[in-house]
């Protein structure tokens, strides 16, 4: 059984399964926000992002499975050229060239020794080839003119890279999803990038052309099926989208009940048609529909959805599940959800039934299975 790492607003919690069920076996960084954690495949190395409110975002690394951590290098933005105008296209406010939040951490493919990707706010994607000892900004993406002309904040004041999808067939093939800035893809290890959000739609845009403008899309989370990486799912601000052609095009899945809005999506490791979502009332509300926490599951590529409720609170529940707070393990059977209310639920049967692991954690920012 894998371990479950839970990053919260007040610390990192490690959970393991015993005969009596899942429970917290370790609490680390108590009092500090942990927006992202990455347990590496080797089972020993664990990276944790800390977000000190006053003192900036930092990274910590453990080489002993999470027992002890030490501070590691943090991505640093380059010097902003004198006179360079970099403003939010909506608010006309200056955009910082300074790390505000570590929002995504991913490992390269097994043949890419030491390769890590780090997505950040205000929109920089960084790469490490030495297990996080040093980081390099992907200037080829940062210098795209669309970044300054179109990217904007989504939830946060500034744009951010929250999803980094590494193709297990070829680690040089990487996708980075941006709120708000669409989905960018490189096939040559970052030498060139192209926009791949064609087909995504923002129904809140002022006109039809703007609604389909790929540069301004707000994908909340993008995941690919590890066994079939050309099959992708996106929980978008506007609804649910999927791609069956490696993000060359996206199709909107309409009519999903009780809501197509949400932040998180997880896809089965071997079945690209099987995916899970946690719906909510959109825009200003961001609470479960009718005060009931549910999980939407499709097993047929989005043609139909089941609304799963067993074990989840169905009355006066106002939990929101952030984009990184739903995960599925390598078997595809074990799922975890953490909420802003500090609830943590685990299912061991693909979402049919849910067990309440905790009702009293700090607000959950990310959950992640690891060896």
């Amino acid at each position, binding site marked *: 059984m894998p371990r479950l790492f839970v990053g919260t607003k007040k610390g990192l919690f490690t959970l393991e399964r015993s005969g009596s069920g899942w429970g917290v076996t370790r609490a680390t960084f108590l009092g500090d926000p942990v927006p992202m954690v990455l347990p590496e495949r080797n089972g020993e190395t664990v990276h944790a992002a800390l977000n000190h409110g006053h003192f900036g975002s930092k990274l910590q690394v453990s080489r002993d499975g999470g027992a002890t951590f030490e501070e590691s290098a943090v991505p640093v933005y380059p010097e902003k050229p004198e006179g360079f105008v970099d403003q939010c296209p909506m608010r006309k406010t200056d955009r910082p060239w*300074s790390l505000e939040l570590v929002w995504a951490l991913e490992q390269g493919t097994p043949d890419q020794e030491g390769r890590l990707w780090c997505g950040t706010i205000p929109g920089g994607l960084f790469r490490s080839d030495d297990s996080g000892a040093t980081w390099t900004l992907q200037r080829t993406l940062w210098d795209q003119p669309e970044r300054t002309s179109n990217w904007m904040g989504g939830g946060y004041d500034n744009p951010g890279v929250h999803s980094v999808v590494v193709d297990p067939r070829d680690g040089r093939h990487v996708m980075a999803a941006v709120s708000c800035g669409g989905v960018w893809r490189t096939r040559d290890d970052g030498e060139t990038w192209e926009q791949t959000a064609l087909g995504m739609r923002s129904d809140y845009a002022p006109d039809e052309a703007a609604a389909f403008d790929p540069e301004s899309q707000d994908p909340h989370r993008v995941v690919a099926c590890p066994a079939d990486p050309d099959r992708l799912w996106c929980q978008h601000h506007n609804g649910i989208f999927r791609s069956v052609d490696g993000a060359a095009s996206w199709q909107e899945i309409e009519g999903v009940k009780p809501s197509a809005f949400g932040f998180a999506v997880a896809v089965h490791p071997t079945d690209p048609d099987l995916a899970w979502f946690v719906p909510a009332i959109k825009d200003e509300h961001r609470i479960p529909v009718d005060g009931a926490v549910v999980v939407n599951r499709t097993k047929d590529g989005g043609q139909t959805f089941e609304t799963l409720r067993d074990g989840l609170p169905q009355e006066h529940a106002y939990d929101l599940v952030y984009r990184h707070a739903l995960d599925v393990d390598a078997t595809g059977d074990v799922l975890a959800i953490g909420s802003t209310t500090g609830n943590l639920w685990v299912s061991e049967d693909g979402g049919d039934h849910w067990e309440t692991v905790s009702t009293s954690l700090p607000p959950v920012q990310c959950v992640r299975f690891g060896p």
Partner: protein
Amino acid sequence: MVHVRFTENLRRHVDCADDEVPDGATVRACLDAYFQDRPDVRSYVLDDQGAVRNHVVVFLDGAPIDDRRAQSDSVRAGAEIVVMQALSGG
């Protein structure tokens, strides 16, 4: 010498013991002298562009410095620099 000290709240995250640094012309020169021995402290106080972090305040002889971007405020011999977190954020 210029005395440099930090809020207790920062000591929880990084080793930033009070210290004396040689007299410098500006706050930045004094901070750089401090960071020379403790490079890990720099990113807790300054952002990637070298400006004072949005929710950090640097006091010089009891008053917040004027130049948060480059810390060019002039420093007298024997001055005291105190790094605090701002109450406005975090």
